[in-house]
């Protein structure tokens, strides 16, 4: 049994927080879609995969600068997200939730299959956003990409906050989340808001996929596990509470990194789902109801 010192724990903490940022982005996308449309989008992880894959394609295939490739990939995935909403969710929007869940599963499988068809099974990679020696923080090594992840996530969260709190469109989306029918009565186009929610969430997923791409390889099946972790985060927030979801996502990242570092890396992925089961158990005891607040 190796002895762990403060430096090691700090190391687990910083890498955990940056991974947690990814989960937060995915989880918030899920929360947005759920609150506006009432759909649990099991295809969220595929948006992450598409974002990363398209960024690689634009950067390596079309030789675009990395920044342009990044933005173009996010934009493309947002359009794909809107298309998915129109083609699959919209026609069945009055169906029971079981039907809707199965539809999003079908969408996820299809998108994954398209990824496989377009890019094959060989994993691809994206270069780090900025080159240079990693930073050393009280003995813990922090690669520059991890800084980029945290910075980007914080920036996206800030943008979302500004959008939802201070713009008319953002307030309209929130109104839909609170009560769809009443929103309709006051003249909000709820169908458009549903479309917008899908596009936004797809964009968030894409951002998550692109910033994590330099650290992990990009493959057609990366979306499944990342999407599932996004759910754990969304459910931690009770599917409605964004601040709790953010905290939960960061915590999950740290937990995982601790477990992978000190226990076994094989069980790392199981941890998230054990956490999910515990959270579900906790929800039955109405723990999260105590500080429940809508997005």
């Amino acid at each position, binding site marked *: 049994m190796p002895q762990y010192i403060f430096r090691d724990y700090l190391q687990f903490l910083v890498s955990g927080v940056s991974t947690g940022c990814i989960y937060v982005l995915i989880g918030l996308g899920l929360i947005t879609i759920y609150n506006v449309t009432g759909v*649990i989008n099991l295809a969220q992880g595929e948006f992450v995969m598409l974002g990363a894959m398209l960024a690689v394609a634009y950067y390596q295939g079309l030789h675009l600068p990395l920044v342009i490739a990044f933005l173009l990939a996010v934009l493309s995935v947002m359009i794909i997200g809107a298309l998915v909403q129109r083609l*699959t969710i919209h*026609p*069945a929007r*009055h*169906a*029971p*939730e*079981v*039907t809707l*869940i*199965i*539809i999003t*599963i*079908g*969408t*996820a*499988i*299809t*998108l*994954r*299959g*398209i990824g*496989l*068809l377009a890019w*094959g*099974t060989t994993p691809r990679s994206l270069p780090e956003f900025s080159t240079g020696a990693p930073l050393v923080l009280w003995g813990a090594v922090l690669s520059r990409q991890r800084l980029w992840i945290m910075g980007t996530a914080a920036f996206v969260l800030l943008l979302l906050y500004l959008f939802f709190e201070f713009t008319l469109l953002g307030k309209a989306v929130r109104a839909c989340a609170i009560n769809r029918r009443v929103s309709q009565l006051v003249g909000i186009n709820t169908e458009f808001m549903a479309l917008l929610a899908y596009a936004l969430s797809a964009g968030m997923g894409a951002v998550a996929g692109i910033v994590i791409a330099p650290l992990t390889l990009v493959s057609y099946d990366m979306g*499944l596990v990342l999407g*599932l972790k996004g*759910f*754990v985060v969304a*459910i931690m927030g009770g*599917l409605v509470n964004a601040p709790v979801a953010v905290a939960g996502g960061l915590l999950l990242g740290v937990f995982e990194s601790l477990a992978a570092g000190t226990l*076994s890396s*094989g*069980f790392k*992925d*199981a941890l998230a*789902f*054990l956490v*999910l*089961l515990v959270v*579900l*158990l906790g*929800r*039955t005891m109405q723990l999260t109801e105590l500080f429940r607040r809508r997005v």
Partner: protein
Amino acid sequence: MSALWKPGFASQRANWLGVLLLALFLGTFPLWLNTPYALSTMVLIGIYTIVTIGLCLLMGYGGQVSLGQAAFFGLGAYGSAILTAKGGWSPWAAMIVAAVGTGLIAYLVGIPIFRLRGHYLAMGTLAFGVVTYIVLNEWKQLTGGATGLPGIPRLSIAGMVIKSDLAYYYLVWLFALFALIIALNIVNSRIGRALRAIRDSEQAAESLGVEISRYKLQVMVISALYASVAGSLYAHYMIFISPTAFDFGVSVRLVLMAAVGGLASIWGAPFGTAAVTLLTLGLRELIPLLTQYGTGEYQIIAYGILLVIIMIFMPEGLVTASVKLWRYKLRSWIMAVVAKMSSSGRSGSSGHVKSA
């Protein structure tokens, strides 16, 4: 739209007739198609049919999605495999013990989840499925890990080992028919009526005194028992099992089978299972002709698109939809004939005969 899934109401007599016809078809099937490939395909269809029937009960009648049914299937298979290959148990005893154990696990997992409404069962079963898959992979001393667990004995009846595919085919379908009959009886029993009431309106059912979480939990345990027994049959048929046969993709395929057949129709289960299995085999042949990669994984695109289309346009499943279509056609045809006869009978009157 809560009544989107009209239960596949069928009278007891029609059900028994159906069982008889299915048994007749299955009994004579090997007489006209007795190739090893056809038989082994039919064995697998039979095994998955058992799981799908359980899933139809849970999803169509309990109104809950299970995205982790492969885990119960896997627990049954590994339970049987470990007890017989490592513990030296009799396969039949192992099958029963594995089923009881799996049912108990389903009960324990279900207790917290069924107190919640909405999507949480889907999430909970999904998490349970993933955790089970990882445990099967990582608990190497017990399960053999990703390399699998070999040396599972075959089933035997009264000292006779069931070796041939033909014998196994009859055995599996005997189980499947039995599972079908039990499920049909459950649907037409008190618990079935309670579940239908819950599915149509939880509030209404609750106000009439139906204990929602208890019935949901019961149907969850029943579906787990079905999956576990099917898993045991799978293990003794394959003689070798590895975790990939019980991953998330398998759970999704099981949902697809149930959805294609029709979630609220027990009768849909065998047909949905057969349709998806045959489609998978067909795509496996077809897809290498279309693409360069030819890894056989492209069938998942077709799965996905199919699932979306069926759920959007035929949420009650292929079987129910086609039965409805047939009935509708038949009725309108009879109406047309009756209208024609009555109008020709009263040839003088020029009254417009309204068609249905």
